[in-house]
């Protein structure tokens, strides 16, 4: 099956609830997901759980007729799983440290919340790609908490203050790009 056809078939299986197609997704992607989770402090059961949640999340989102995957199905699905694992770590950390009480909610609600967060994450990533290469570089360092001094050294800025100004401008541009996108406002609708 040609790649695009195969990807369409897999997505369609998830939309319609066709177990044969979904099994194909397991065959193709579960070993990758398991390898990732196990190498990131998870167990095989965690991998199974993440796989199920990712499939349900994607099915819920793909019911929208405008839903499109712009990369390959495989790459997209693996990204969802990686993000779900990051999310699980954050949830567990927040519960352990009591940083704002995170109540347990029923499973459908939890998957719906994760789907929403993933959708927002994708929009933010798309907007980041839309700004200049230089801004992306400086912001990648900033958002990943690299100290200003090190950013100056890495990117050849004369002073820490120049870095601060650059970050300020880039963040403002990025904020504008997100803010003016209709999908951001749609996400915020109550």
């Amino acid at each position, binding site marked *: 099956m040609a790649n695009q056809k195969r990807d369409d078939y897999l997505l369609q299986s998830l939309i*319609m*609830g066709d*177990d*044969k197609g*979904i*099994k194909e*997704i*397991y*065959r193709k992607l*579960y070993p990758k997901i398991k390898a990732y989770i196990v190498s*990131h*402090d998870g*167990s095989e059961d965690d991998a199974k759980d993440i796989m*199920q949640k990712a*499939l*349900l999340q994607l*099915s*819920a*989102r793909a019911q929208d007729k405008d839903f499109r995957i712009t990369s390959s199905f495989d790459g997209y699905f693996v990204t969802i799983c990686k*993000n779900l694992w*990051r999310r*699980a*770590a*954050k*949830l*567990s*950390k927040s*519960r*352990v*440290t009591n940083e704002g009480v*995170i109540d347990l*909610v029923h499973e*459908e*609600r939890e*998957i*719906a*919340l994760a*789907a*929403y*967060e993933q*959708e*927002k*994450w994708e929009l*933010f990533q798309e907007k980041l790609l839309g700004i200049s290469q230089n801004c992306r570089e400086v912001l990648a360092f900033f*958002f*990943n*908490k690299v*100290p*200003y001094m090190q950013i100056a050294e890495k990117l050849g800025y004369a002073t820490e203050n120049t870095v601060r100004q650059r970050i*300020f401008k880039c*963040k*403002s541009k990025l*904020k504008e790009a*997100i*803010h003016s996108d209709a999908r951001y406002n*749609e*996400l*915020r*609708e*109550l």
Partner: protein
Amino acid sequence: MNTIEQDIEKYLNGEMTKEETTVFLKKIDADSGAKRMLELYEEMDTVYDEKNWELIDRNITYKKVEHYENFLKSDSGEKVSEAILKAEHSYFEESRPSKIKQTLLYVGAIAAVFIAGLFLTNQFNNTINGDQLYAEYKNWNVLPSLTLRDGAGDLTNIEKLFRDKRYEESLVLLKAYVSDNDQKINPQILLYLGVTQLELDQNEAAISSFTKLRNSNTLDVPKAHWYLALCYLKLNDLEKAKSELNLLIGSNISFQQNKAKELLEKLN
């Protein structure tokens, strides 16, 4: 660039004085546009941090969340859910070895046990592999974050090195931090110190760090039981591991209770 954006930046960087913060927050409260801008800046800080994840406020019901939830609860959603379970079941059944292969495996396993039995007379009581259970149950993601917003402090560096699995460098900073702050026990630092020592196979030192935490007067004492149990598992001292797990379960704190019970069952 307007002043409000500059103020937001200052606020998020923790560069405002107490008085400035109070004035700023009042200003934000009175201006819905500025409030939205601050929210977006905060969202950006979390969403773009590769080691973080933005959990949305569960008290707000966004239309989209409701929409997805309604689908998942609908007949169509249930149909998808059932299909996923069916596919998963069929996939894992298929991945199992065939009956002939399974029989051969059993025969092989029985033979192996029989042969091993000829040589191992003292090990019958210790068929559980503590080291394997240690690998299965260690999950450093549950360690609380040490990172502060400024991103330049020692604690931030320690956590970054730790998350990058650069344990030797992280240990140097941790020891320096402990020695600089000798008078005060920081439970989070002790947790990072012990786990780093475990990763570097300094098992006895790890036990000593977690014991220090266990003997402290902090709220994190019960957590020390979990990490001590992991240490003993790694060293295959299963009785001591069980004893620590029992202490954790008896403490009734919500930390790793299910995992502790599950692990104890396996050890029993």
